[in-house]
């Protein structure tokens, strides 16, 4: 070997010779240590280790943590955990999973039960790695399996916590639901913590705050016998429960809003205009998040995902609707701020507005006569706002719409939010490849045309008017707490911006909105409470243009799918607003007739809850009521 290495024209390595000699010795000693240790383990101790490997039944088992609780603003628990029982097979050798399933099915059949398993389990088992045959089994099955344990070696019942959504359908669009982590989600996570079979938030707050709610898995080292039962627990690391979440939602008000909508397709958003807190958020139709607990069955999933009414969609943040006349507040604010009108500027409404050879109708066919800003808002005169729209132009209008938070994500703590649409000249040129027509500005100025808003944006815009001009980020999460109550993270209210509109101008619009509800001829009279404390705006948004032909019109209207959306947005009390409400009922007709009564129920419920909570104790309050009733 050495001969091969000549020293022909190498540099002088003589001074290195000694160093390399030492190096050789060091390396040889090190390698010798490895070989000696290896010989010790394999040759000297080989038999002992062989025995240990044959008896090796020590397994690491993951212990799922408890997910954090979700509480409402009054610290009522709205999502908790409950025990569920899973049917699990722990194999002690390699075996076809299909064979076990057949055995269990045979076993069940004798009792008239059937195995409820939609996931396709195939392939072979790995010794001591449990296979979950059925999740969340019924008590009848539990009793049957437990009493016949000897007939089914290896099949055991495991206790696993599942989510308990006490709010059911009414809370599901806020809370979301959980499910087993999917393959794609697993790849995205890509860390040691997450493994197949683990539970992860799939939508709503469960998804948004998953990293806080999830907690940390524990592990235990257990010795199992041939049937897979745990013989001895050797080591144990307790799982760490997830953090608890406190929402701004008031579950009582949420319930009232749910009942106010009474199953009609639509959405309601209730907000505190003082800091942007969402007090209630409803979207119907809805779904029961508890269905997902036992791994949703294929039938249920198909029913939910193929429903033409999209019950899984949260309409409050993902639904985009033409705002209709509720948009008139934006047009009014823009015209006032730009100095184009004063409260006394009047326009004459004869029932229609002419532009070139086109004619745009007012909803009041006979016209409103001379109207100023206040009357125009109260009676929702379209012609008045057509005039403002024409004076402002679509781009100026868009500027103010954006100031109100339209056309952008509100930043609410819920997934899948949509931005809506505020049309501009540039938008149309880039998206439709056509220049903007002046005739298109006219419908935009009464909230028809290209405009799209989400219910959350609408509630937020009216909050801004209510509080005198501050646009808040809609906030749904108040804080996150550890199990011991220590506050982990606070989500403070965030003021996004202030309207570029002077406060006296905002006050003029507010007065108009008060008139809508409380003055004669106002479109929102359904909200006229004895306290006269609500201010709001009706809206009716056309879904599609109706045919001119009267017979076709009627047929289409009757089919229901082409009926207008009913909108109502309001705040109360007028002087010092505490809540802002936006209600949209889909394909229901006029806003004043359909949406306003829903809003009324919500506002009534809010003040009722407020007084009943303010009362010192419930019995005394009750006594007072009884006395009055008796007199």
């Amino acid at each position, binding site marked *: 070997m050495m001969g091969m290495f000549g020293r022909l024209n190498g540099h002088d390595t003589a001074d290195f010779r000694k160093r390399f000699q030492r190096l050789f010795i060091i390396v040889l000693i090190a390698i010798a240590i490895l070989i000696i240790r*290896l010989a010790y383990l*394999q040759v000297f101790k*080989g038999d002992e280790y062989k025995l240990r490997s044959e008896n090796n039944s020590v397994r690491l088992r993951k212990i799922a943590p408890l997910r954090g609780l979700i509480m409402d603003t009054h610290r009522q628990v709205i999502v908790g955990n409950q025990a569920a029982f899973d049917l699990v097979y722990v194999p002690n050798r390699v075996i076809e999973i299909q064979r076990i399933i057949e055995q269990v099915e045979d076993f069940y059949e004798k009792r008239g039960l059937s195995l409820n398993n939609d996931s396709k389990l195939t392939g072979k088992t790995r010794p001591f790695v449990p296979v979950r045959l059925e999740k969340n089994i019924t008590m009848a099955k539990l009793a049957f399996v437990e009493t016949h344990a000897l007939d089914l070696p290896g099949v055991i019942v495991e206790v696993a916590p599942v989510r308990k959504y006490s709010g059911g359908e009414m809370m599901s669009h806020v809370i979301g639901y959980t499910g087993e982590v999917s393959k794609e989600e697993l790849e995205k996570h890509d860390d040691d913590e997450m493994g197949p079979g683990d539970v992860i938030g799939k939508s709503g707050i469960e998804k948004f705050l998953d990293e806080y709610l999830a907690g940390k898995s524990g592990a235990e080292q257990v010795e199992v016998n041939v049937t897979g039962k745990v013989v001895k627990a050797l080591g144990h690391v307790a799982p760490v429960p997830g953090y608890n979440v406190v929402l701004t939602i008031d579950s009582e008000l949420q319930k009232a809003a749910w009942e106010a909508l009474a199953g009609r397709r639509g959405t309601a958003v209730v907000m505190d205009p003082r800091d942007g807190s969402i007090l209630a958020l409803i979207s119907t139709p809805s779904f029961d998040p508890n269905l997902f607990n036992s791994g949703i069955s294929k039938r249920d999933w198909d029913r939910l995902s193929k429903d033409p009414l999209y019950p899984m969609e949260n309409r409050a943040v993902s639904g985009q609707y033409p705002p209709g006349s509720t948009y008139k507040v934006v047009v009014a604010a823009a015209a006032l701020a730009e100095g184009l009108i004063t409260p006394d500027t009047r326009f004459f409404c004869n029932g229609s507005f002419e532009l070139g050879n086109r004619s745009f109708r007012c909803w009041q066919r006979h016209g409103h006569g001379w109207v100023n800003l206040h009357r125009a808002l109260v009676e929702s005169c379209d012609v008045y706002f057509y005039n403002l729209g024409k004076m402002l132009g679509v781009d100026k209008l868009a500027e103010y719409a954006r100031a109100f938070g339209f056309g952008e994500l509100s930043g609410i703590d819920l997934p899948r939010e949509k931005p809506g649409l505020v049309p501009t000249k540039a938008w149309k040129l880039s998206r439709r490849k056509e220049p903007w027509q002046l005739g298109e500005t006219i419908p935009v100025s009464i909230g028809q045309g290209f405009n799209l808003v989400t219910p959350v944006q609408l509630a937020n815009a009216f909050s801004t008017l209510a509080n005198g001009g501050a646009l808040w980020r809609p906030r749904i999460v108040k804080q996150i707490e550890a199990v011991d109550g220590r506050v982990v993270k606070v989500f403070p209210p965030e003021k996004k911006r202030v309207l570029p509109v002077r406060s006296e101008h905002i006050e003029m619009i507010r007065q108009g909105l008060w008139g809508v509800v409380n003055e004669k001829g106002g479109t929102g009279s359904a909200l006229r409470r004895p306290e006269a404390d609500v201010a709001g705006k009706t809206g009716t948004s056309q879904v599609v243009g109706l045919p001119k032909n009267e017979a076709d019109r009627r047929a289409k209207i009757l089919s229901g799918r082409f009926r207008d959306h009913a909108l109502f947005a309001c705040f109360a009390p007028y002087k010092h607003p505490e809540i802002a409400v936006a209600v949209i009922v889909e394909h229901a007709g006029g806003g004043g007739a359909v949406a306003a009564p829903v809003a009324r129920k919500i506002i009534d419920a809010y003040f009722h809850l407020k007084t009943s909570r303010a009362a010192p104790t419930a019995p005394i309050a009750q006594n007072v009521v009884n006395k009055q009733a008796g007199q």
Partner: protein
Amino acid sequence: MKFDRQLLINFDWPLLGIVMAICFIGVMNIYTTGFSLTTAKAPLYLKQIQWIILGLLFMLIVLSIDHRILVQYAYIIHGVAILMLIFVTFYGYTTHGSQRWLALGGFSFQPSELVKLTLILSLARYFADHGTQSRYSIKDLLTPFFILLVPFLLVLRQPDLGTALMLLILFLSMILFVGIRIKDILIAGFLGLLMIPLAWYFLKEYQKERILTFFDPERDPLGSGYHIIQSMIAIGSGGFLGKGFLKGTQTQLKFLPEQQTDFVFSVFAEEWGFVGGFVLIILFLSLILWGFKIAQYSRDLSGTLIAYGITIMIFWGVFINIGMVIGILPVVGIPLPFLSYGGSSIVVLMMSIGLLINISMRRFVLQP
């Protein structure tokens, strides 16, 4: 570049032969760990073969450039590797809670592997410039220390304790080889001791836990304690002749953790016994000794230092990895060269072997 027939004649076939033999064992070994897995993804052993082929390609590239040109640009190359490290720190993606990967069109790449090689190149450049006749004092070593420090801190921050430790060991091995005054060794050792509490402060909780577990395996029977116990059962139960290919129960029943990375040797020793383990270690020993010969007989000082650095890197990889799986060193996450699964590691190792062959075959060539 001009082709020199003499280079081909002097090609170091035995070295390539040893490396390919070790690689073959590696692929076979990864095959056995993936045997009972039923995933849709491409089996790991096929991927490892792809990486080896890619590595051979890179080896060819490195071969064709005179190592002295590489030394000339050593600092720039090192700088580029450090830039990639910085980039990965901020934009790389995270696996196992550590941010060290760079996605390159379908492949992912770990700059921390490359930086081992560029560190060797840069140190070789520095010490070749300054000679090895007189012994260095601490003051003379400030520049080399700086060459180490930047990548060392970046890698530690990822956090990748194993690679950071490797960089430090490479640095120490280099300066001990070029020579340092005894007095200065003592001072450096003392300073190093002072650094321990500071380093401890920088370590992540799980890293501290691993070190403590080495001194007291009962501390953590579920974590690395469990790993090391299962690893020793696997190796021990292999006995003299092993349980046979694909028959290792510890491996096949997944008692053994991290089978394709840190604990590959345990997989091999379980199935091939002491005989297999011995043969593999001897293969590594011949590779190391061959590398030292190349270093000793290099035509120039920089070649000596590079060859020495690469060889000592392989030596430490073998010694620390095998040492930890047989329970004589703490589990620090240093892979076994050529056997542990890992694309970047294989490609950089192949480039290193390319450099060794490069130095080996140029030692006869007279060049202006």
